[in-house]
């Protein structure tokens, strides 16, 4: 029974495909799953928006949306209808084609990422051998769309926002990659399914999630920081810092295109948190051995929403960084930490079993944190920052 419940979607799919001739089954099956994903995440997105607005409102001691439907839970509907019916304004000087392509590319690329994300036991679209690589390849292409958006709408705010976004995304993508490479080093596989499997063991009812190891914890923290920056969420939301640039790269977007950007941003958040929970929080595995009877997909989406909650919480709590602070942080703290984390993981791997590697790895990481984070960041050379132009 529990098994059935766990595999319900898989069973459903096979049952549906059962009615089709052999030759059709594979393509239709793929299409089916794709449709599911494409249908599911926008729905989650709708829920999340209202959650966020209410949550942030609660943090800021406001009421938040409370007009549409009971407690304003139908707010997303209203927003959707509004953005669909609104006029789609394109600046006359704008570069029409690119301006149109940008949001499309963004959404497409972001959705691509879910192809390799296992959302439950046997619930992955394609179990690619180089899944993680694929994911990052897709993530890399998102930057381009942001640039397209910023550049095509001939508007200096948009351009500045885009440049900021791209610079920030590139800087933090490195950190993102390096912090995930640790996992690859330990599991020896780029396939996310295998990575989850590797964490699906229990000692004394406690799971073998990677976050419960020194390097795992450090890696997770780095990943969380880099991921936040990668999705341009606060405190790293300079690209759309409304106080400086009206709305960053999507200043000139309105109506449905803007909605697409909005969607893209949130779906990106979903996929980043999904990857994070897959890499460090054991994906769809249960946090306690006794809780395994609960279906795996519930766990996955539970973790997803947990991290979304954290995203919202951070947005409500933390102030925005300054550009140079952002860059310093990326290159002078996060990156070195990631490299040291790699080193620690390697040590962990080669020191074999036993208590000692725990001590050594944690010692290395703590020492590194103290020396880089505390010592290195202490003496800030304050003063006017020096700008660099090409000319």
């Amino acid at each position: 029974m529990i098994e059935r419940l766990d595999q319900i979607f898989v069973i459903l799919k096979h049952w549906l495909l059962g009615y089709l001739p052999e030759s059709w089954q594979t393509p239709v099956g793929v299409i089916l799953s794709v449709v599911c994903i494409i249908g599911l995440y926008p729905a989650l997105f709708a829920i999340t928006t209202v959650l966020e607005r209410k949550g942030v409102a609660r943090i800021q001691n406001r009421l938040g949306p409370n007009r549409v439907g009971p407690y304003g839970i139908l707010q997303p509907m209203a927003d959707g209808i509004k953005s669909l019916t609104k006029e789609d304004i394109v600046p006359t000087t704008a570069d029409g084609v690119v301006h149109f392509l940008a949001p499309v590319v963004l959404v497409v690329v972001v959705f691509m990422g879910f192809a390799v994300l296992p959302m439950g036991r046997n619930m992955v679209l394609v179990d690619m051998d180089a899944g993680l690589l694929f994911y990052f390849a897709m993530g890399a292409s998102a930057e381009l769309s942001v640039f397209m958006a910023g550049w095509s709408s001939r508007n200096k705010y948009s351009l500045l926002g885009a440049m900021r976004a791209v610079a920030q995304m590139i800087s933090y993508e490195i950190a993102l990659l390096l912090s995930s490479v640790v996992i690859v080093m330990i599991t020896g596989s780029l396939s996310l399914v295998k990575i989850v499997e590797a964490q699906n063991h229990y000692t004394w009812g406690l799971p073998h999630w990677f976050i419960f190891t020194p390097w795992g914890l450090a890696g997770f923290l780095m990943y969380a920081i880099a991921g936040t920056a990668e999705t341009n969420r606060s405190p790293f939301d300079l690209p759309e810092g409304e106080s400086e640039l009206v709305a960053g790269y999507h200043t000139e977007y309105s109506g449905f295109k803007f909605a697409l950007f909005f969607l893209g941003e949130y779906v990106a958040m979903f996929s980043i948190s999904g990857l994070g929970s897959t890499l460090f929080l054991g994906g769809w595995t249960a946090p306690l051995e006794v809780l395994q009877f609960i279906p795996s997909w519930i766990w996955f989406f539970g973790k997803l929403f947990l991290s979304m909650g954290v995203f919202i919480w951070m947005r409500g709590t933390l102030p925005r960084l300054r550009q140079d602070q952002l860059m310093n942080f990326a290159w002078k703290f996060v990156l070195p930490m990631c490299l040291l984390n790699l080193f620690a993981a390697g040590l962990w791997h080669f020191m074999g079993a036993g208590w000692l590697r725990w001590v050594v790895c944690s010692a290395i990481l703590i020492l590194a944190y103290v020396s880089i984070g505390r010592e290195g960041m202490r003496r800030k050379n304050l003063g006017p920052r020096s700008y660099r132009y090409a000319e």
Partner: protein
Amino acid sequence: MQEAMAFTPQLDASSIAQWLWLIPAVPIVSSGIIALLKQPRRKMASGLAIGSLGFSLIVAIAAFAHVLSGWSHGFAVREVVNFSWIQVGAQSVELGWVLDPLSAVMMVMVCFVGLLIFIYSTGYMEHDENYTRFFCFLALFAGAMLGVVISNSILLLFMCWELVGLTSYLLIGFWYQKPAAAAAAKKAFVTTRVGDIFFLLGIVWLFAQTGTLLFYDHGAGSLESLALGGLLVHQSHWGLTAAGAIGLLIFAGAAGKSGQLPLHVWLPDAMEGPTPVSALIHAATMVAAGVYLIARVYSLMSAGAVAHGGAAGTTTALMVVTWVGAATALFAALVAVAQNDIKRILAYSTVSQLGYMMAGLGVGGVAVGMFHLITHAFFKALLFMGAGSVIHGAHEEQDIRKMGGMKPAMPWTFATYAVGMLALCGVPIFFSGFWSKDAILESAHQWPVAQAPYYMLIFGAVLTAFYMTRQLSYVFFGAYRGHGQAHESPRVMTGPLVILAFFAMALGVIGTPAWPWFRSFLENHAAEVEMHAFAESAWLMLLLTSCVIVAVGIGLAWWLYGDKSPRAEEPDALEKAIPPVWTVFANRIYVDELYGVTVIAFYYWWAKVADWIDRNIWGGIVAGITLLFKVWAQVNRFLDTNMVDGGFDKGCEELYNGGGILARIQNGRGQIYLRLLAVAVVVLAAILIWSGRP
């Protein structure tokens, strides 16, 4: 990942032996980190050094406990971890470390004493601006020393050995602004190098003979019966086997490190370094490294001992060791009598005690020598730190004649110092020095070959008691003759003193003839208490002798110096009694001078000769050649100006015009070049394809 989640750290046998390398590694790494620290980060530096050594101590104690448990269950623990360092063809240079009673005892001692001295130095070096550097060196030294202790490969041992030498050099010359310190450092380095050359030769020979660098390698090691048998086959002249010869070469290295005659000269000068350094390196650990080395390769030295027969059985190598040791012990004791620098006296006493250890190794085997090494490490470190605290209290005054009457001023120091002194003199029953020294004397007494070493050592013991008493009465009794006001040192300095004092007394328990725990531990047989050992006439005899020795020594000294406070300028009491002997002693029996007129003079003369050759012969040749070239150059000049230039200018013009034409092609536009390149490629490829066509 399964075992990764094992939350309970459990410390099983194999793991401790495997992680033995951490003991040296951690201090070395921490010294590296300290080296990167900035000057002002003093707390961090000392903290790192002490913490790392503390960690080493914990691991060392764990290892010791492991060995102990194995021993108490009645089997000899000798766990080795070997790995191949470099692979050269079929030969592979192998390194490794060993965990056996010897190394276990030694490492615990080094870590413990080292830790205390580290703590002590935080107080002593407080006002030095190179605090961080000091701790960097100290940590490095500790790491290297521990490396020497645990290494199972003679090559690794040699590396650490040299590293130790280097740190000793660095630390002796720590105050390199003082020319004396710099000179002393150089002297130490060069002198020990002399020994190390022989050591290296020994290593090479050993490797050539046995084909392995490892001591123990599950039967294949160089110290195991197989290899030893091979080393014994051919006896060279005067009964010296290959094993013995190699042993002697290694002993030369050991003699260099631990200041045996005739290479002892550097050790007294090494006192130019900071006192903690003298305590750690030049009393407790490094100088003992030589003794430890001999103990490590003892089976090499004693190989074929039965051939000579006799009670203990001995070999030529061991005889040499014994004689050198005894001679050193006596010599240094004599010299120490007539020194006035507090640290110098201690230095000479260290030399003499090292002589005792060597002699002990020679006559009585590993256990005897090592026992004295351990006890000596404790009380000599205690004495040095006490001396440091005295110097501290007397405002950096080192001349004992300018001290005196410090007993009331610094009670703690006095008490602990007295304990150390009594231990060194070997006052019976209560002090560890007595037990260890007696073990040596006893076995010297039973030595089959000769009785002379026994008497030498006895006389040395008398002198030891004498000069220690002299020093004590000079420093602590009588009236204060120094400048300023003597004051007690801070708690952080006296604390270690107290701990060490305790051990200086208590440590004797493990080596009494009634319960020869230490010996049986090292030699891997069960230790049982036999009270009747005390009743044995031989032992009682010995007890009596040592009582007499101590009584004579102390009494004489007290009669000469006790509690009367002679002024610096007036001659020493003993000098009044026997001036000529005194002067000889006071000038350290002219050994340095001897070297001065022999070795150094020779080199000096040789350098002069070389210089002369350089100036006159080579210089002359060079001058001649120069002249030749000058003439030739003149000729050339003439030819140039008149013949070549004319033609050359003409050619240049032609070339210039030609260049003008060619320059059109080079119009400085990258793209054009690129095109030419592409064309060239196309043409080339075409030619190739056509030519390659079937």
